[in-house]
């Protein structure tokens, strides 16, 4: 039953087919049986999870209607290790925080607990979320469940691999530029990057503060919508959260795509793109056309410049955010930073240093304005944009060694929308001949999560009988 979606698991719990303890045990057993191959977790919290599951079972039996105001009651969820969890070790996959036990919960974690979720543990990631491979984790790389000689992507690689391998019912990730969508693409799961400010960053170990967006990684679009309902909203503890209304995302997914205007940009089918990825995305676009959507070719700002903007902004903000780690209040001192963190801190420090601020950071923020305006113009013509999530399939383990901008270059197709603070979702669209997943992204304007989710759901619904959907990782 660990392979269930949230929706199915909720039904089973309510119908007394199984208990949350059964469900949690099934997930913990799958973790135990597959962790040796995957390394998706930094910390598994068996006892705490079972205790939460027992409490959930009690509540469900005494008060079944509790599931209406606790939408995740009894559902086992994995959380990326950069979310502060009260009383549970939180490392961001860096040895600097090897023994750090936060005395408080991130807002996202608090909301999950309030919604009744059972926390299975903390998932592996690129250290400090610096990367797109999960290979820079100080606790060893996570492996792709579809082929353990391949990388899961990153930085939320542990969360994506864990969902794909059915170690959990759903997981939480965070994206600065690509860190939810890209590993979801490489692992064949659904990953939603909400609009910047839709979900609170409070208690998330900060990477690029003007970009960081927490979001769900799930087996279906419906589950993604359900988690977003729980996580979204204004938070007094994060001044950048939006006061905009939280919609009932999961209840409004049925809108047909007839006459929907979908923008396609040839610049996103970049030189060197994997031919099977290109073919699958084009076939998915045809599918939308057959469902009555209107496809329009649009011209977008060259994504390659987004690599430059993103590298400068993110590394500058990284150098500032990581300045606080001095080993005095918690964690260890700065000698424990590894190569990738040092590389990013050094570049960021250089870019922000006296005499260079305007040339680098400020100039990148000006180009950011250009990118925002470019998307605004595009969304006057089309409702959403469809593109490949990653130009490649999952890459082999070891691919990042000594590549100084691996993450930034791998994420070229998700960086422009992240820089502009837009929302986007990765959904699986098939497999390569080599049995690796292929993902497609749907990008919408800021705060258009409802539209993006419903378009993604329509694709899922209209391809649900395709044979590739029945595949399971052979672990």
């Amino acid at each position, binding site marked *: 039953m660990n392979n269930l979606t949230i929706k199915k698991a909720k039904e089973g719990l309510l119908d007394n087919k199984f208990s949350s303890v059964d469900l949690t045990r099934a997930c913990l057993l799958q973790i135990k049986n597959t962790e040796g191959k995957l390394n998706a977790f930094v910390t598994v919290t068996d006892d705490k999870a079972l205790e939460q599951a027992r409490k959930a079972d009690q509540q469900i039996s005494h008060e079944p209607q509790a599931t209406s105001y606790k939408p995740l009651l009894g559902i086992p969820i994995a959380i990326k290790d950069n979310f502060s969890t009260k009383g549970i070790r939180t490392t961001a996959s860096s040895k600097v925080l090897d023994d750090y036990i936060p005395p408080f919960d991130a807002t996202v974690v608090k909301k999950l607990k309030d919604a009744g979720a059972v926390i299975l543990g903390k998932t592996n990631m690129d250290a400090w979320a610096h990367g797109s491979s999960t290979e820079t984790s100080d606790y060893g790389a996570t492996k792709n469940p579809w082929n353990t000689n391949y990388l899961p992507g990153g930085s939320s690689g542990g969360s994506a691999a864990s969902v794909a391998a059915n170690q959990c019912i759903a997981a939480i990730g965070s994206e600065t530029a690509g860190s939810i969508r890209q590993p979801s693409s490489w692992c064949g799961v659904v990953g939603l990057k909400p609009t*910047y400010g839709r979900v609170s960053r409070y208690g998330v170990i900060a990477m690029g503060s003007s970009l960081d967006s927490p979001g769900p990684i799930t087996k279906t679009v419906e589950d993604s919508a359900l988690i977003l309902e729980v996580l979204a909203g204004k938070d007094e503890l994060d001044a950048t959260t939006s006061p905009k209304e939280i919609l009932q995302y999961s209840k409004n997914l049925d809108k047909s795509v007839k006459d929907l205007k979908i923008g396609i940009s040839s610049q996103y089918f970049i030189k060197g793109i994997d031919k099977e990825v290109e073919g699958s995305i084009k076939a998915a676009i045809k599918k939308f056309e057959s469902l009555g959507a209107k496809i329009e070719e649009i011209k977008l700002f060259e994504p390659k410049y987004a690599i430059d903007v993103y*590298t400068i902004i993110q590394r500058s903000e990284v150098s500032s955010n990581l300045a606080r780690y001095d080993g005095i209040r918690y964690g260890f001192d700065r000698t424990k930073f590894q190569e990738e963190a040092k*590389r990013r801190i050094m570049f960021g420090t250089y870019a922000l240093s006296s005499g260079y601020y305007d040339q680098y950071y400020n100039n990148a923020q000006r180009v950011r304005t250009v990118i925002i305006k470019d998307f605004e113009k595009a969304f006057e013509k089309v409702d959403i944009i469809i593109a490949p999530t990653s130009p490649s399939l999952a890459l082999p383990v070891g691919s990042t060694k000594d590549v100084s901008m691996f993450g930034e270059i791998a994420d070229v197709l998700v960086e422009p929308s992240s820089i502009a603070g837009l929302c986007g979702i990765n959904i699986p669209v098939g497999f390569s001949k080599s049995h690796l997943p292929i993902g497609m992204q749907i990008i919408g304007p800021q705060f258009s999560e409802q539209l993006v989710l419903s378009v993604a759901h329509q694709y899922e619904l209209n391809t649900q009988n395709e044979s590739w959907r029945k595949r399971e990782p052979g672990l």
Partner: protein
Amino acid sequence: MKINISHIAKLANLFLLPNEKTKLEMQLEETIDYVNELNQIDTKNIEPTSQVTGLENITRDDLAKPSLSQDDALSNAKSKHNGFFKVNAVFKDYE
């Protein structure tokens, strides 16, 4: 272009070994060359964006609220004294 790697490391409060300095210097120059591509974009008369959703002047009432207890706040400190964080002296010659 030449970068003063030791100066940057000092600003970043990072201790680097000589071989790390050599490698990082090379990679830093590589990255700077790469991002200099941005100079091809005309950004004259364009305002920089730092807050993408346009929120401005978000404030809240300045009220004292329950917070972490002293014990909780100190719970991860490796070095403490009488309920305080213990740190190295800032002024070395202070008597």
